[in-house]
């Protein structure tokens, strides 16, 4: 390159660089210091005082399409034109309006500004309207979603009570549900199978409603009552062919709905949806020592048949609801633990990222649990499938960002720790026993020693001695942990009552839409609100809702007090919006969930997603009928369950039918009852029940108290958690994320990371091997065999079948069982072993390697095998025991 060319290259480079430099500098550099000062001291305060209330982002208003809180918006103006034209008083509508000379433009509406202020505005416009308010951090993010078109989707239309369809086979139908079902079968050329037997129905009802098997006496009693109708009586009911006494059946349903087991069974269903767990999961997996209160609240709510809309409001905004007394206050606060139970990465260093993820988790859970809508997909972009723009996500985020979530944990153990809520003296029982004086003294001594150790270490550091950093950290942790352990009790050793829950922040946090969900890319402010597609036009912001007459009426009817939201988070509005009868999704979603829990699959199979990527309802009118039934019966879940159980559709047998199977192999049109594999909890509870070992008393607090505080693998150890043994119902077992009880894990219990409206049902060799080899199963078999031991030998098979399978054995089953039990009669003197001692060890070994024979000691011969226990265990391993027909 020649010298001349290189000189030109340098010059071009400089010009290019200068252009680059000055292109980045804002226009503000053309305004002088004095001009900016004038604006800041004379003009901005007036705009803030007199104009922002109706014309700013923060007020959420743009009357006349005009905003005055940025330079750009003032220059662009509103519906009438530019508000400010630099150096032109005649063209500046802002100036015209403050003069009060034009009847159409008189601002501010409360009164004319003083002459000095008007003079300042005149001067400002004449000097060129200098304005440093270049506050656009990122350009606004616009959405292209057509919300109005989106409202036409089936799930976003309000449910209507449909006409019950007519059918040629309407005589078959016993209830409205049956009419919808038979009409759908008519359409697809299907025929319903016959009804289940009384024995089958009794077992089905017990498991579905309580999660426990019926006792032999209950089976006998109810089978007799249900089978009251003779063949003469059935023939007097033409076309019905029912062999079940429906009145007696209804009595059984009512009895089971009143049993405490109902709440434990159905509460467990809801806890799947609420992703209930006793730990944070995530990176550190710290234990939640107080999550159990929410568990008990759910169980009690189902037992009391709390109206579901009330249940929703309490979980979303319980801490904000008006109360009559302290008991109600405490219960509502505990209910708000719904928002605090989710997965958290408590080791996250960036507090803002942690908080954003917490809010995201709350949005996802709330929307999916109650509305089966995946709003969280819109965190980074518009929803790809549903009409939910990114703005809707951040409108909800504004509500949850203005909420403080209290989930506990110690700062010494988790970077993102918070306090708990203290409910001492408000009614809930303590979750731990009272400390004795000695125990109290021990705790105080531990705390003082820990504090002294820290003090000593600090003194050493100050005197120049080297103290290992890890040591200091450990000592501080010990000090904080011992202090926290002491603070959990009063001075007299009475345990304090703590709970997880939420509170409103003192002030709402403004929320900006984040481009691609990135914290450092904020765009426009988004006012708090709810998804637009589920509201009427322009009724989605909290402001619009607070002045809506319908919403105000709902607040009044629900005794929620004032719909004002400015000083709070807006969660009460959100709760009432979800629980409203006008919300098209809420009643449908819960009705569908109930149907799923009753039948094994929902009318909409994707129970957690009613959006475009979810399934369509197989019986849309039936779904609406169920939703209307729920709302018109005061949102009573028991009423809906009862209605379903009384239907003939629910009482069908599970028998196979070739012709129907060829048309509808998945049984979408309900021509039979689905055979369902029981959940792990129900299998475990059933084993304990049939063996007579089940403890039906609710435990106090959590079993994790003995495991300690802290993260799994750091302060708390997995073997300790897994060694927790109990004979209470499985709903009370500790549910530590990633450390589920083995039996539940094997039988597909969800890990509680997400909303789980339906569980997978796998069939794997692990399950079979577990049932055949696990010591817990063997213990139950031994206990069951012990109960049968006193029965005459010729009745033992029948007794075992009645206990385990709730039916009498067939002749063939008796023959096979007898053969098995007598198999070793020739070589053995007795089939009876010392079961009391073997049940203590829990290990009776059969033969040389079988676990049913007692382990040989040095000088004794092995005892004869316990064939009875082996036979019992074989029945526990059957598919029939693990499924409900």
């Amino acid at each position: 390159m020649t010298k001349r060319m290189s000189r030109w290259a340098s010059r071009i480079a400089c010009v290019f660089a200068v252009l680059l430099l000055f292109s980045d500098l804002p226009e503000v550099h053309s305004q002088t210091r004095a001009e900016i000062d004038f604006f800041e001291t004379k003009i901005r305060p007036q705009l803030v005082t007199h104009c922002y209330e109706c014309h700013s982002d923060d007020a959420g208003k743009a009357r006349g399409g005009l905003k005055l809180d940025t330079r750009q918006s003032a220059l662009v103006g509103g519906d009438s034109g530019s508000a400010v034209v630099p150096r032109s008083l005649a063209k500046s509508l802002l100036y015209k309006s403050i003069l009060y000379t034009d009847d159409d433009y008189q601002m501010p509406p409360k009164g004319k500004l003083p002459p000095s202020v008007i003079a300042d505005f005149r001067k400002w416009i004449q000097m060129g309207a200098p304005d440093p308010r270049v506050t656009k951090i990122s350009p606004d993010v616009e959405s292209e979603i057509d919300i109005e078109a989106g409202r036409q989707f089936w799930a976003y239309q309000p449910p209507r009570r449909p006409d019950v369809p007519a059918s040629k086979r309407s005589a078959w139908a016993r209830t409205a549900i049956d009419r919808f079902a038979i009409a759908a079968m008519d359409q697809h050329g299907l025929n319903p199978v016959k009804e289940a037997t009384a024995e089958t129905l009794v077992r089905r009802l017990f498991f579905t409603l309580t999660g426990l098997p019926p006792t032999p006496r209950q089976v006998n009693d109810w089978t007799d009552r249900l089978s009251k109708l003779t063949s003469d009586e059935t023939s007097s009911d033409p076309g019905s062919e029912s062999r079940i006494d429906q009145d007696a059946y209804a009595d059984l349903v009512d009895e089971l709905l009143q049993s405490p087991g109902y709440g434990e069974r159905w509460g467990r269903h809801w806890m799947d949806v609420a992703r209930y767990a006793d730990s944070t999961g995530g990176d550190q997996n710290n234990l939640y020592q107080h999550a159990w209160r929410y568990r008990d609240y759910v169980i009690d709510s189902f037992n009391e048949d709390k109206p579901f809309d009330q249940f929703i409001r309490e979980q979303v905004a319980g801490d904000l609801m008006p109360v009559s007394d302290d008991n109600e206050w405490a219960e509502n606060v505990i209910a708000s633990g719904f928002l605090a139970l989710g997965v958290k990465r408590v080791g996250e260093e960036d507090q803002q990222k942690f908080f954003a993820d917490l809010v995201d988790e709350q949005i996802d859970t709330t929307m999916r649990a109650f509305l089966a809508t995946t709003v969280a997909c819109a965190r980074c972009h518009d929803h790809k499938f549903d009409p939910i723009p990114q703005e809707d996500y951040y409108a909800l985020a504004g509500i949850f960002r203005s909420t403080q979530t209290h989930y506990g944990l110690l700062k010494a153990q988790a970077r993102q720790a918070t306090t708990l809520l203290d409910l001492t003296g408000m009614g809930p029982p303590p979750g731990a026993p009272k400390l004795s004086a000695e125990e109290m003294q021990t705790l105080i001594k531990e705390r003082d020693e820990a504090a002294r150790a820290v003090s000593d270490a600090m003194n050493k550091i100050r005197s120049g001695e080297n103290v290992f950093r890890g040591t200091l950290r450990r000592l501080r942790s010990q000090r904080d942990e011992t202090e926290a352990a002491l603070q959990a009790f009063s001075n007299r050793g009475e345990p304090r009552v703590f709970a997880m829950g939420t509170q409103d922040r003192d002030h709402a946090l403004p929320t900006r839409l984040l481009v691609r969900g990135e914290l450092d890319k904020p765009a426009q402010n988004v006012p708090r609100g709810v998804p637009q597609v589920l509201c009427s036009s322009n009724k989605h912001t909290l402001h619009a809702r607070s002045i809506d007459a319908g919403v105000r009426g709902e607040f009044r009817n629900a005794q929620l007090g004032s719909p004002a939201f400015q000083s709070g988070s807006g969660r009460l509005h959100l709760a009432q919006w979800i629980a409203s009868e006008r919300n098209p999704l809420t009643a449908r979603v819960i009705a569908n969930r109930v149907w799923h829990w009753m039948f094994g699959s929902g009318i909409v199979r994707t129970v957690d997603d009613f959006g475009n990527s979810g399934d369509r309802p197989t019986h849309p009118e039936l779904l609406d009928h169920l939703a209307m039934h729920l709302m018109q019966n005061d949102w009573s879940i028991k009423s809906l369950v009862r209605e379903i159980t009384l239907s003939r559709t629910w009482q069908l047998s599970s028998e196979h039918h070739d012709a129907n199977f060829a048309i509808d192999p998945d049984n979408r049109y309900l021509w039979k009852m689905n055979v369902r594999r029981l959940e792990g909890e129900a299998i475990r509870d059933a084993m304990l029940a049939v063996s007579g070992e089940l403890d039906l008393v609710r435990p106090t607090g959590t079993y994790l108290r003995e495991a300690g505080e802290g993260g799994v693998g750091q302060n708390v150890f997995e073997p300790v958690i897994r060694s927790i043994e109990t004979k209470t119902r499985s709903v009370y077992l500790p549910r530590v994320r990633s450390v589920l009880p083995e039996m539940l894990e094997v039988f597909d219990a969800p890990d509680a990371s997400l909303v789980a409206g339906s569980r997978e049902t796998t069939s794997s060799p692990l399950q079979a091997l577990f049932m055949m080899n696990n010591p817990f199963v063997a213990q139950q078999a031994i206990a069951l065999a012990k109960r049968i031991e006193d029965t005459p030998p010729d009745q033992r098979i029948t007794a075992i079948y009645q206990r385990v399978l709730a039916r009498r054995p067939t002749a063939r089953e008796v023959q096979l069982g007898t053969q098995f039990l007598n198999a070793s009669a020739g070589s053995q003197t007795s089939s009876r072993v010392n079961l009391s001692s073997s049940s203590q060890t829990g290990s009776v070994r059969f033969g040389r390697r079988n676990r049913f024979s007692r382990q040989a000691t040095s000088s004794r011969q092995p005892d004869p095998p316990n064939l009875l226990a082996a036979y019992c265990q074989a029945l526990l391993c059957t598919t029939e025991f693990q499924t409900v027909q």
Partner: protein
Amino acid sequence: MLRPIIRFSLTSVLLLTFTAAAGAEEYFVRIEKVSGNRMLVVNDTSAGSGGAGGPGNAGGPGNAGGPSNAGGRGRGMRGGGRGGGGSGGGGMSNRSGRGRRRGTESAPANATTITIAPSIKITAAMRERRTFEFRVLAELPGGLRHAVFQNMKQPLQARIVTKNNAITEVNVITGDTDINQSGSTANGETVIAIRPKRPPRKQTP
């Protein structure tokens, strides 16, 4: 032949760096007083830029040619300086202003008043104990109405972040960042649970 190419590259890199540096700046200040939507700040020359954050600048938000006579100012800032909230002389030290004044009574001579627009993000902050790294914590709801400012008895250290000559963020170092986030208060008290706020009483129909 290489010399002009190298010269060209160096020039471009320098100028591009300069440009980028002019985009986002941070200033370490001491908040002396808070009144309404205004803060009286003093450039805090003792606070380094720490590990986190942008290019960092020991200057404050009011350097030569800037909106006041006090402290230092970032490069490339002229005229408007503080964008979203600059305010010049005659600030809080000379006016009673609206609302109660909070903070120390006598304002240092080199103090600057800045106006905090509602759109500016105000967060808590802390310095890592060992590395002194500056770490931004959670947002303070209510902005200048937060208890940290309402109850301030002594000056607060803070960092002001600007972008394109506009203040975008103020990060305030507080002893008690947020009782909801600390196991121990600045006084060393351990708080593991707080009483919930009492909701309104149910109206009898």
